[in-house]
Structure formats: structure tokens, C-alpha cells
């Protein structure tokens, strides 16, 4: 690879028909260290400078163009101009602007987060209020239900008491009547039994003693009762 780079020098010098191969090498040296070559080889100087010149004219470099100090002043001047412009533009315009944009964004994000936190808190509060309202309503409902129940119970108790009293009254009345009916039934049965007994005694030809008949019927009914 390196021999190829070296081979480039003679090729460059070929454009000069006057340059002998030996001069071409001098040309290569002269381009890099023009002053040295000129001082040490006066006879070759003309050819050397000419050859180097041809190489440059064809846009061809000999040696390292970076080491040609005749271009340094120009490069350094324009570099400093460029850097000064860039520094000014960046420090006065671009960087403050980007800084502002980034801190704006940071601020917006922080603000949004805080707002979100606030909304979250509000949502929590609302949930708590809802829960409280719900439990209040439930308690109220319980209270109303209890009150209604108590009312109904009272009415019910009253009604039951009234009904019981009526039932008791009717029962006692019915018992009284049943008693009366039983008494009268017993009295009827007794008189029927006496009458039947007296008729039977008469029919058999006896003389019915009213007192004996009564006693016998009573004794019989007593035993039946």
C-alpha cells in the first residue's frame, strides 16, 4: 500500500515532459520543503519548482498538503471567523432558546403533574363525599323503616288488643247463652222425663206419686250427669 502512495509522485511528474525521473523526485521533495531543495540543489531548482508547480496546477498534492504552512494564515483566519460567528450565534440565540424551551417543557410537565395530583385528590374527596352520602342515606332509610315498623307494630298491637277484647266479650256472651241453653235443656229434659214417667206409671195402672217420680228422675239425671 505504501509503495503505491510513493508511486503516485512520479505519475504526477509525468505531466512535465522536461522533467527527468531524477528531477521528479526532487520535485516531490521541493513541494514539501521547497526552501531546502532550492538551497541544496541549485541546478535542479528550476525543474523542481516547475514540476511541483505542474503538480499543483493539475490539482495534485505532493507530500502532505496539511504541512504547507503558506496556507495556515488563511485557514486560521477563516477558522477564527467561523468560530466567532458560531460562538456568538450559539451563545446569544440558539442555546438560550433551547434552554428556555426545555425549561418550559419541564415546567409544563411539572404543572400538569401537579394538576393531575389535584384532580386525583378532588376525585378522592368526591368519592369520600359520595360514600358518606350513601351511608347517611342508608342510615336514614334504616331509621324510616324502623319508625314505620314501630308504627305498624303499634297499630297492629292495638288492633290485636281490640280484637282480643271483642273476642273475649263475644266468647263470654256465647258461654252465657250456651249455659242458659244447657240449663233450659236440662230443665226441659227433666220435665219431659217426669211427664213420661208419670204417663208410664199411669199406663201400667199405678198411681203416680208426683213426689216419688220427681225424686227418681232427679236421681237418674244426676247419675247421667
Amino acid at each position, binding site marked *: 500500500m505504501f509503495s503505491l502512495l510513493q508511486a503516485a509522485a512520479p505519475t504526477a511528474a509525468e505531466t512535465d515532459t522536461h522533467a527527468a525521473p531524477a528531477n521528479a523526485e526532487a520535485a516531490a521533495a521541493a513541494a514539501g520543503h521547497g526552501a531546502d531543495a532550492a538551497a541544496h540543489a541549485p541546478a535542479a531548482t528550476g525543474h523542481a519548482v516547475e514540476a511541483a508547480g505542474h503538480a499543483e496546477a493539475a490539482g495534485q498534492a505532493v507530500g502532505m498538503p496539511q504541512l504547507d504552512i503558506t496556507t495556515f494564515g488563511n485557514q486560521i483566519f*477563516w477558522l477564527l471567523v467561523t468560530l466567532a460567528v458560531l460562538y456568538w450565534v450559539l451563545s446569544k440565540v440558539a442555546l438560550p432558546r433551547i434552554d428556555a424551551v426545555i425549561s418550559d417543557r419541564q415546567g409544563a410537565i411539572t404543572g400538569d403533574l401537579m394538576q393531575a395530583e389535584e384532580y386525583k385528590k378532588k376525585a378522592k374527596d368526591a368519592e369520600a363525599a359520595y360514600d358518606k352520602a350513601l351511608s347517611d342515606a342508608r342510615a336514614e332509610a334504616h331509621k324510616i323503616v324502623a319508625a314505620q315498623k314501630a308504627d305498624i307494630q303499634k297499630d297492629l298491637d292495638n288492633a290485636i288488643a281490640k280484637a282480643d277484647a271483642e273476642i273475649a266479650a263475644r266468647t263470654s256472651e256465647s258461654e252465657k247463652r250456651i249455659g242458659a241453653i244447657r240449663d233450659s235443656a236440662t230443665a226441659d229434659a227433666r220435665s219431659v222425663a217426669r211427664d213420661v214417667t208419670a204417663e208410664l206409671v199411669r199406663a201400667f195402672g199405678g198411681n203416680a206419686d208426683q213426689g216419688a217420680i220427681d225424686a227418681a228422675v232427679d236421681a237418674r239425671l244426676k247419675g247421667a250427669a
Partner: protein
Amino acid sequence: MATEAETGLAFHPMDQFVVKPLFRHIEPGTCVPSQNITEGCIRWYEPTNATLWLGLTALAIIALFVFGTRGRAIIPNRVQSIAEMTYGMVYKMLEDICGKEGLKYFPFVMTLFCFIVFSNYLGLLPKSFSTTSQIAVTGVLALMVFLGVTILGFVKNGAHFLGLFWVSSAPLALRPVLALIELISYFVRPVSHSIRLAGNVMAGHAVIKVFAAFGAMLLISPIIGIVVTPLSVLGIVGVYGLEMLVAIIQAYVFTILTCVYLKDALHPSH
């Protein structure tokens, strides 16, 4: 291999690094300062291809960071996201390494990072000029960091800044030796800082050019070319992919080293 060169393959891997004026043709051999021939020399003020690509770098950065963030949107679009992520990355890097005090120098670090990233990527465009492949450019960047950090160190800490070279945790007998080593390594910083970047960018670009020259093999010898040309095209693709990585990695490395040096200036204790 030399025979291949003679048969017509043209290897000019370093041509892409030549600085040329934009609006002037330079006659050959008209810049030999030792002989007072200077009309062909590039004047310090004239616009060159380097100027053009420096300007394009600046425009690209302004496009991203100024026009891209024009909307100042709370919900950023893609371009604004890229600008914000770059901002965040460099900001975090600086804060992690230097702490809160380092944030005062954030615009400087950001300028360096953006400049190098955009230069590296613009330099990967075909036909472009890589400003970061020039030792003059990376040297100025590294020297700015070196001088800035050194001056800042002395202004902030006075003579305590020299404590950076006096390793108080080492045995007393070793300290002078360590001090010498620390001193040398301190002064080598700008050299390694600049050459690392320029060397990485230059090497990749030169290798791509060499592969590109091999790509023409098919025109010269169809038999060899049928093998070499596809291989060299593959090589270009591979190296280009690598260069895409190198572009961001070297910018990152340059910036992180700047932060580390800045930390030394702010907190010189070992």
C-alpha cells in the same frame, strides 16, 4: 504494484487536502517564499475551498440550532428534537465531568462539538473539503483549549494550579519524577488532542481515495479488474461506514477531553 501504477491507475489520495483559492487560478511555482516569490501564495484573507466549507459548516449548524428551533415548540418536531438532544448530550457531558461550575463554559464546549461534528460529516460528502483534516484547524482548536484551560487554571486557583503536577498521594521521593512526567504529559496534550482528530479524519479520507483509484482497474485490465473493482467498491463502502462512526466518535472524544482538561483547571487537586 508499481507496475499497476504505470499502467494508468492514478493515485492522488492527498489531493483532497490541498487548499485552493476559490476565485483565482494560481500559476505553478509562484509561491516560493524563500525566493520572495509570493504572488502564488494564498493570502490570509482570500476565500478558499477551506473558507467555503467552514462557511457551510457554520450555516449547517445555524440551520439546525436556530432555524430548527424556530417554533420553540413544547412538543418538538424532528429537527428541534435533534437540536435539543445534541444540547442535552453536551450539557450532560459537561455537567457530569466538570460539575455545575463548568456550565459557564457550555457555549464554548458546544461550539467546539458542533463545529467538529458538522465539519467531519460535511467532509464526508464527495468532492468536499474536510476542514478537520487540516492540522492548522485542529491545532488552533487544541491550542485554544490548552491556553484557555491553562489561563483559567491559574486565574481560578493561582499557584494551587501547580498542584496538578505535584502528586501529593505518592511517596515524597517519587513526587519530583512524577511532576516531570505530569508536566510533559500536560504539554503534550494539545499535540495529541489536535493530531488525533486530524489524523483520524485524514487517514480515512486517504484510504477511501486509494480504494477509489483501485476501482478504475476494470478499465485497464478486465481480467484483474473483475476481481479488484468490486472489492475496492466494497472497500469504499466499508471505510465510508467506518468514517461515519469516526466522525462522531472523534468529535465526542475531542469534546470529552476538553471537558476533562477543563475539570483539571477548575479542580486541580489530584
